[in-house]
């Protein structure tokens, strides 16, 4: 590619996506095989001063394609983006988002607001999902510096973007995770309590949904757990996550697989 110069009226501005479209960089949508089961569980829970996210690691088609997929990535320092649906499209969306936020920052010397980042993804999701059977649904969570709070944005298939004030889930394991979250969510959760609730919700999803991978004690592969607050995106080390799931597992073993009418 040569030097991409534009006249003032044809300039795509600081949006990388619009630029990519104007020079034909973004992918086209032709005929594809429809195989987009949203085999995943990703959970985001708000707490007092941030957001916690938990995701399983399994990629499922007609069989388990991979056991150590990363479904949450930092989109920038204070924003996390999780994906469900088509892996190829999801990873592309992730790449576009990461690049776009940085691109905007370099072009304008100022950072996009969290709401700006959430809205930016809407037309990308919309265009992908309405023109291709390879559906992708992201979940965006981050620290809003102007409001001084953690915020969660979820999307529907047509690209609609909705803020969730409590928690959000995406993927096929959602109904099971959501049940736990509904019972366990409180307004005054701290980081530790939010992590605990998120882990328990993911455990439930892994237990009930065949396409969600729970903790894998055989291979020592555990779900991803991250927190985002004013200090930025932070991923919990695998040993820490492993311990949390080992505790849940231990409790469940003792009660012979039953939650027993409580959040165990």
């Amino acid at each position, binding site marked *: *590619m*040569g*030097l*991409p*110069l*534009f006249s003032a009226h044809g300039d795509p501005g600081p949006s*990388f996506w619009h*630029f*990519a479209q104007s*020079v034909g*960089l973004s992918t086209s949508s032709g005929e594809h095989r429809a195989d987009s089961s949203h085999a995943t569980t990703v959970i985001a829970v708000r707490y007092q001063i941030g957001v916690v996210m938990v995701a399983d690691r399994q990629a499922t088609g007609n069989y388990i394609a991979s056991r150590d997929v990363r479904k949450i990535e930092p989109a920038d320092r204070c924003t996390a983006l999780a994906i469900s649906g088509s892996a190829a499209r999801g990873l592309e969306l992730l*790449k576009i988002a990461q*690049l776009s936020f*940085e*691109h905007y920052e*370099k*072009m304008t*010397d100022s950072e996009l607001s969290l709401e700006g980042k959430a809205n930016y993804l809407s037309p990308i999701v919309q265009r992908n999902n309405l023109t291709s059977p390879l559906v992708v649904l992201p979940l965006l969570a981050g620290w809003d510096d102007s409001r001084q709070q953690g915020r969660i944005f979820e999307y529907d298939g047509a690209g609609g973007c909705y803020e969730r004030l409590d928690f959000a889930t995406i993927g096929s394991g959602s109904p099971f995770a959501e049940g736990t979250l509904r019972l366990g969510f409180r307004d005054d959760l701290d980081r530790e309590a939010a992590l605990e609730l998120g882990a328990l919700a993911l455990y439930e999803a892994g237990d009930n949904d065949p396409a969600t991978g729970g903790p894998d004690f055989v291979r020592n592969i555990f779900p991803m757990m991250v927190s985002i607050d004013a200090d930025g995106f932070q991923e919990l080390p695998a040993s820490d996550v492993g311990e949390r799931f080992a505790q849940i597992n231990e409790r469940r073993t003792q009660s012979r697989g039953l939650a027993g009418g409580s959040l165990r």
Partner: protein
Amino acid sequence: MTNYFYVSPEQLIKDRAEFAQKGIARGRSIVAAIYDKGVVLVAENPSASLNKISEVYDRIAFAGVGKYNEFDRLREAGIRWADSTGFTYSREDVDARALANYYAQHLGDMFTEGQKPLEVEILVAQLGSSLRPTKLYRVAYEGTISDEPRFAVLGGDAETIRDRFALSEAELEPLATTLKNAAAALAGPDRVLPAEDLEVGVLEDRGTRRTFQRLSDDQVKELLG
């Protein structure tokens, strides 16, 4: 009927060069120098928001002097080029030399074929890695590209500033010393530039992917001592 007058190519080039030089001389200058841990770009710029120095990519920075609207468009094109190259291939395939070449071609084209030559000079700085060396590429208004070994000066008063800086800095120094020398070279013997009138950007490894950092007035003050 229109009358056409013959103008010799020599005269045309001379006129265009003079025009561009005059435009560039109206603005203030920039010093870019390699220090012991990275690259520092120092611009005399009283404006806090109309920047002359910018991040382009993980290890690449841009500086421009002359007409703001002209070099800012080149800056934007550089960021777009770098981001799309990294997107298409890999982040490590984004090379400052390729970008400097595109700038040189564009400036050369505009100099000979444009309505008027661009009144700008561009610097593309690259922080070295295991793949590529630390480099300062200077691109002049007519498309001449030069690979400056230790430091580069852009702008109208470049010769004088270059001599002053070369005298004060004989070898690679720490950031504070290089910044002091650059500020003194920009200011000249008769004045002192306050931190507010300096725009400073550095490329330095801090263990993160992006190495560019814009220094605040307070940071500059502290380094100037």
